[in-house]
């Protein structure tokens, strides 16, 4: 919302301290995003006539322009624009001029020839965005004068406000002025709303038929004759331009001026072209079309409201935009002025569906003052009379209303509640004074009975009034206290374990990745992961049309990306949510850990799993009989807890690597953290350490490939019993000297008793027992 300072100052006497006014507006909740100074004339830039232009043989991009600034002296200027001809009047920045962009004009020589100033483009003078040519001023402009006069410039300050939707009236100057006047304690000049029919004027009526009164609850029509369409007064054109609206003609400009000033969008129709000489307000028939003012043909539905003429021909979309055919023309002499109230939610829906947000819809969708029509009509007439002193306002104004017109509520506001919510100690009188300036009338003491002004439809409950009290009192005056937390600050056990897990992974040299949780349709298939995924109904791009059910596709993409940038052997992890579909109220979203190690094999993944398991107290069965989807069939295993699969470990299937163009092995570890992080790590219980010496035993077994090492270890443990305090696989050998289909597994056992030194005989017996135990698996001592 652009607020022009002089216009605002006319309604509320806010003074000229721009920074203070801006700070006050921000403090009132209308954040000033920018303060722009428009129309200022740059000192030192004067009008001059082009005498002649001349090319220089050695200068391709500039030419020489000779100008006369009215003092009879011919001045020479180098110029890079070629749009002027002899006789044109142009702005000349004389040497020493400080331009708006900070440059100071100097007689900088080109090819040794000095320039006696600079000719200016619109952009250089901050008149507009055009920087391609020099500004050509109207012919007849006197020479040697400040150029601003010739252009009719007036210096003006414009505040660009961010107005929130709970200040609907502040989409008009009056609302902004009212907030400021109340806060600053300065007078507010509200325009008059006295009836304006010209005495003795004949009755001339534009009839109104409200068919759908729930959608349009008030529709006024006023007939004004004796209108001559022509230009607006300069001051009005300047203000509208500063507020971001092009001046069109006196009627359209007054219409816009009233909308901006009083937050009452309105529309002037040519009564002579208004079919049947009246209005009919109804919802559209599905498929009905109308070409709006912007030249676009709109197809409507039964949810959209139409303004039709009395013959039922649509002439505008109610509250949003008029039709192309209903515009007034240069020859219009009698107008029918519409000022109406439309139901906000429907306006918002239609505007959204049509993608058509107009100045009118913006205001109607937040709610305009249902009682503001008389003032708006009076103001319209007052302003139009400035260019049409003889206009006639006819008797017979129509004010059609339906029972759906909102009635401002009366709300109970408890002073104790105000103070309890704000942390203030305001008295009843202070509260009443704070809101009175905004038009909230109140009676009562401990509990106020507050009548909401009709221009504040956002206020429907006690807390809305309390917010207005706080706004006027000033948030910065409320004070700062810190409540004493009754909780002790901490992470939950799951959150603490998640941090520890991340720390372990970082310690293993892995980098944390955060790939996009959206996947393309075929990403899961490419990663060898079958199964359904949740679709996004309204995705932005095809690459992001489903939600991931695994972290793997994203991590593989990250490897692919880094490989393409000559980073091989990348190790990444992600702790993130995956979203498999489910039958519940919500999908089966859960947290997963994904680890990928490029250039490493399944044993590296196992080693990460063992590190993580040891550090976190995780436990799971490594079951190589169940190959997880998308992984290498002979180098992968499912991690199981009871009957549930809680993870996967191994290598990515070579087919998948081909699909991703990854030309090194990729080891994978995946864990379901919703299970693992939720489980408390077992508290280690003390075991006594022995004071007696230990003995080491190295045993190598020739073991069939069909027997997994885990089984050999189990057999050793079982046979050795409690005396075995440590067991480590230290060598695996395949090759010469071993029978086909076997390998040698070499273990080091540390044996120790709590109560004695183990005797040699005891050790020999134990060794025989272990060898016998392992032999049952078909493994023999080497």
């Amino acid at each position: 919302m652009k607020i022009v300072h002089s216009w605002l100052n006319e309604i509320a006497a806010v003074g000229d301290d721009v920074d203070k006014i801006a700070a006050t507006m921000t403090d009132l909740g209308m954040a000033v995003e920018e303060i722009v100074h428009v129309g200022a004339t740059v000192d030192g830039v004067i009008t001059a006539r082009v005498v002649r232009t001349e090319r220089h043989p050695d200068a391709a991009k500039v030419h020489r322009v000779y100008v006369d600034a009215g003092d009879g002296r011919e001045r020479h200027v180098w110029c890079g624009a070629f749009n002027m001809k002899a006789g044109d009047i142009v702005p000349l920045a004389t040497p020493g001029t400080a331009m708006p962009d900070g440059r100071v004009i100097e007689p900088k020589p080109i090819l040794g020839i000095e320039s006696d100033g600079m000719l200016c483009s619109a952009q250089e003078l901050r008149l507009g965005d055009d920087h391609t040519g020099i500004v050509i001023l109207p012919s007849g402009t006197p020479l040697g004068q400040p150029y601003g006069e010739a252009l009719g410039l007036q210096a003006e300050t414009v505040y660009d406000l961010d107005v929130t939707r709970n200040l609907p009236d502040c989409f008009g100057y009056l609302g902004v002025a009212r907030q400021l006047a109340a806060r600053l304690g300065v007078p507010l000049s509200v325009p008059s709303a006295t009836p304006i029919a010209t005495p003795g004027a004949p009755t001339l009526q534009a009839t109104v038929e409200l068919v759908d009164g729930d959608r349009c609850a008030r529709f006024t029509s006023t007939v004004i004759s004796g209108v001559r369409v022509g230009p607006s007064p300069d001051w009005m054109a300047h203000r509208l331009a500063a507020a971001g609206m092009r001046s069109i003609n006196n009627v359209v400009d007054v219409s816009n001026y009233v909308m901006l000033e009083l937050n009452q969008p309105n529309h002037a129709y040519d009564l002579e072209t208004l079919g049947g000489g009246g209005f009919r307000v109804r919802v559209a028939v599905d498929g009905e079309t109308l070409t709006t003012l912007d030249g676009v043909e709109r197809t409507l539905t039964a949810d959209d409201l139409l303004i039709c003429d009395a013959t039922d021909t649509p002439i505008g979309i109610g509250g949003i935009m008029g039709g192309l055919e209903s515009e007034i023309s240069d020859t219009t002499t009698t107008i029918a002025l519409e000022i109406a109230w439309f139901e906000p939610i429907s306006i918002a829906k239609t505007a959204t569906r049509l993608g058509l947000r107009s100045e009118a819809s913006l205001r109607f969708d937040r709610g305009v003052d249902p009682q503001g029509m008389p003032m708006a009509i009076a103001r319209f007439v007052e302003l139009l009379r400035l260019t049409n002193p003889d206009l006639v306002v006819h008797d017979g104004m129509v004010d059609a209303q339906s029972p759906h017109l909102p009635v401002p509520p009366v709300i109970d506001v408890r002073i104790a509640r105000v103070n309890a919510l704000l942390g203030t100690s305001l008295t009843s009188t202070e509260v009443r004074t704070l809101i009175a300036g905004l038009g909230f009338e109140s009676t009562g003491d401990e509990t106020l009975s507050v009548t909401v002004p009709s221009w504040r439809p956002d206020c429907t409950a006690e807390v809305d009034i309390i917010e207005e009290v706080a706004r006027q009192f000033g948030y910065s005056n409320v004070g700062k206290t810190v409540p004493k937390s009754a909780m002790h600050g901490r992470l939950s056990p799951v959150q603490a374990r998640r941090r520890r897990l991340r720390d372990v992974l970082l310690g293993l040299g892995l980098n944390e990745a955060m790939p996009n949780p959206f996947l393309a349709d075929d990403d899961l298939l490419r990663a060898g992961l079958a199964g359904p995924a949740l679709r996004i109904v309204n995705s932005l791009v095809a690459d992001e049309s489903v939600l991931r059910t695994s972290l793997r596709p994203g991590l593989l993409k990250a490897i692919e990306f880094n490989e393409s940038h000559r980073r091989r052997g990348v190790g990444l992890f992600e702790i993130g949510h995956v979203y498999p579909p489910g039958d519940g109220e919500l999908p089966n979203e859960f947290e997963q850990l994904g680890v990928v190690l490029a250039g490493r094999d399944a044993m590296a993944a196992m080693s990460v799993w063992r590190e993580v398991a040891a550090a976190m107290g995780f436990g799971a069965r490594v079951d190589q009989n169940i190959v997880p989807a998308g992984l290498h069939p002979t180098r992968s295993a499912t991690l199981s807890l009871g009957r549930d699969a809680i993870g996967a470990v191994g290598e990515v299937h070579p087919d998948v690597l081909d699909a991703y163009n990854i030309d090194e092995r990729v080891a994978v570890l995946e864990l379901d953290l919703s299970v693992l992080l939720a489980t408390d790590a077992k508290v280690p219980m003390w075991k006594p350490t022995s004071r007696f010496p230990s003995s080491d035993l190295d045993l190598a077994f020739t073991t069939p490939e069909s027997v997994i090492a885990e089984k050999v270890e189990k057999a050793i443990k079982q046979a050795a019993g409690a005396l075995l305090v440590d067991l480590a696989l230290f060598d695996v050998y395949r090759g010469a000297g071993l029978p086909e289909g076997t390998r040698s597994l070499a273990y080091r056992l540390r044996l120790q008793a709590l109560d004695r030194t183990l005797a040699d005989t005891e050790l020999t017996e134990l060794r025989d027992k272990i060898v016998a135990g392992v032999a049952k698996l078909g493994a023999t001592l080497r």
Partner: protein
Amino acid sequence: MIEEVKRARDAALTRIADASTADEVRALEAELLGKRGPFATFKTGLGSLETVDDKRAAGQAVNEATTAVSERSADRRRELAASERTVQLAAERLDLTEVMSRPGRGHAHVVTQAWERLEDVFIGLGFQVAEGPDVETDWYNFEALNLPPDHPARSMHDTFYVEHGAPGSTVLRTHTSPVQIRVMQSIPPPIYMIMPGRVFRNETTDATHLAVFHQLEGLVIDRGITLADLAGTIDAFTKAFFGAEFGSRLRPSYFPFTEPSAEFDIQTPSGQWLELGGCGMVHPNVLRAGGLDPEEWSGFAFGFGIDRMAKERHTIGDVREMYSNDLRFVEQF
């Protein structure tokens, strides 16, 4: 005999002096002073001497010789050991800058780092941390937050809808605020919680906007919580997170789920104001949706972007790079 002892002593001392390593000296000590060494033999031979005087004189000579040999050998051994250690130390020299490059500790994601720093500050202020699902029902994401289906402010949220359940019933949460409702429903007040998490907005990404990013939400519900408490908590956070020389302010704004609502700005030591996030007193309708009586409990909520904190702290020019998983980016932080 005394002469023999002296000769043996002199011979021993010569051999000790001639020894060139500490180990050699140790071997000589064992040979000369051991049970079978010459001085032990002399001691045994004392018994065969005639007179007591002879015995005493010879005994004294043997003792003196033993002591002399033992002392000299110990000296020689220390001397040799010291010079050997000196040689060893010189030979063991390492150039500690000959560091072979090898992978070091990994890098946590830049957003994770900001996330954890924020959590730690709020934990210090007495907050706990709650979490909720990314995929939410329309009710939790909007309706419970005082955004009924036709509420125009819904258009402030560009929402991703998920094909799950009835059409339009399931969304990717547009903010972390639904966790407020889940917290109110699951634990009785007093509540001092923060709720960090991933959020989704259906908008085109650019250097400053992401469709998927992270927010941190705060919720306090207790008896007698006021707007002043909100302002004070924001200020305490600002000073704890950014530094004691930073300031903060609230200014009125609009959010459907809070009233009064505010934007909160922080002021840098140079006096510049930066908009940081939104906040306000929890709207009575939101308390009701969470199962709480607004006459008994009041509270405030606040929220801001975590990614933005990382962006500002590290002066990251393009937020999209944070999610590129490009190691050249990841390893900078």
